[in-house]
C-alpha cells in the first residue's frame, strides 16, 4: 500500500511538471509577466470546452486566446485590462469563477444560507432533546 502511494505521488508530480512545461513555450522578459500569464490562463474558461481552463485546453480557440493574452501581457496590460478585454467579448462565461452580481448572489449566498439554516435546525433539535432530559 505504501509503495503504491509513493509511486502514484511520483506519477502525479511528473504529470504536473509536464503540463507546466507545455505552457512555458511562451517566454517572457520578466518572471512577473510569466506569473501573470500562468495565473490568468488558470482562471479563464476555454469557452468551447466548458469546464477546462485556458491553461489545460488544447482546443484551437484556447490556443488563439492564449496567444492573444500573451500579446496583451507583452504590451504591458494589467490583469483587469485583460479580463475586461475578454469579458467584453465573451461575457462572464469566460471566467471560471462567476463574479458577485445581482444574478449570482443566490449562488454565492447559498452556502451561507445552508449553514445558517442547518445551525437553526440543529439548535432547535438540541433544545428539544435537553427539554426531554429535564
Amino acid at each position, binding site marked *: 500500500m505504501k509503495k503504491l502511494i509513493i509511486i502514484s505521488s511520483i506519477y502525479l508530480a511528473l504529470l504536473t511538471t509536464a503540463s507546466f512545461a507545455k505552457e512555458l513555450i511562451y517566454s517572457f522578459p520578466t518572471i512577473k509577466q510569466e506569473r501573470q500569464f500562468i495565473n490568468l490562463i488558470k482562471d479563464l474558461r476555454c*469557452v*468551447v470546452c466548458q469546464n477546462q481552463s485556458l491553461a489545460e485546453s488544447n482546443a*484551437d*480557440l484556447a490556443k*488563439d*486566446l492564449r496567444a*492573444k493574452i500573451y500579446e496583451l501581457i507583452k504590451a504591458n496590460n494589467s490583469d483587469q485590462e485583460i479580463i475586461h478585454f475578454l469579458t467584453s*467579448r*465573451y*461575457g462572464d462565461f469566460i471566467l471560471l469563477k462567476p463574479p458577485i452580481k445581482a444574478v449570482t448572489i443566490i449562488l454565492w449566498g447559498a452556502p451561507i444560507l445552508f449553514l445558517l439554516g442547518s445551525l437553526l435546525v440543529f439548535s432547535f433539535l438540541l433544545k428539544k432533546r435537553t427539554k426531554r432530559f429535564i
Partner: protein
Amino acid sequence: MEVIIKQSKVNFMVWRVMPLIIFIVLVIFFVYSLKSTQETQTYILENKPLPNFKLPFLEPEKQRAQLFTPKILHGQIALLNVWASWCLSCEEEHIFLMQLAHQGVAIYGINYKDDLQSAKKWLTELGNPYKAIGWDAYGAAGIDLGVYKTPESFIIDETGKIRAHYIGPLDENAWLKLSAALNKIGLNLEKINYN
C-alpha cells in the same frame, strides 16, 4: 391531550420528509438548468459598436473597396454571419441564408480561420448569399467579435451597432424568434434592406 400528540406527530413527519422535498426541488432545478444550457441555439441582445476589424476580401476581384471594414455595413440593417467551409452546421444553415438573401436581406460574411481555396470552392458549389466577405484567416476578428462556435450571426443596425448576437445555425424558427425579440426593442427586421 390527544390533539396535541397528533399535532406533534404531524410536525415530526414534516421534518422527516423535508430532506426528500429539498432533494426533489434541487433535482428539478438542476435538470431544468442543464437542459437550458444544452440548447445549441441562443441569442444575446446587445447594443455596442462593431469592433474595428480590417480584413482582406475573400473575393477581392468582386469589390471596389480595399478592405472589409465595419464601414461597408453602414446605413442599413444587416446580417453579419461568421462561417467556415470546415464547419458542418454552416452547411446546414447555408440553405436558409440563401433564402434570406433571395428575400433581399443584406448578408455580409466573415470567413473564419479557413483555407482560401476551400472557402471559394464552398461558395461556387453551394451558392453565395453574401454581399461581401472578409477573410479572417487567423481568427483575429473572431476574437474581437467574441466568436467561439461557428456559425454565429450578428444583427447590425443602421448606425453600425451590434444589436443581437446569435450563436448556432440560423433557421426559419430562430429568425422569427430573433425578429420578435428585436421588435420589442424597436428594431424592425421587416425593414431589413429589401432591394
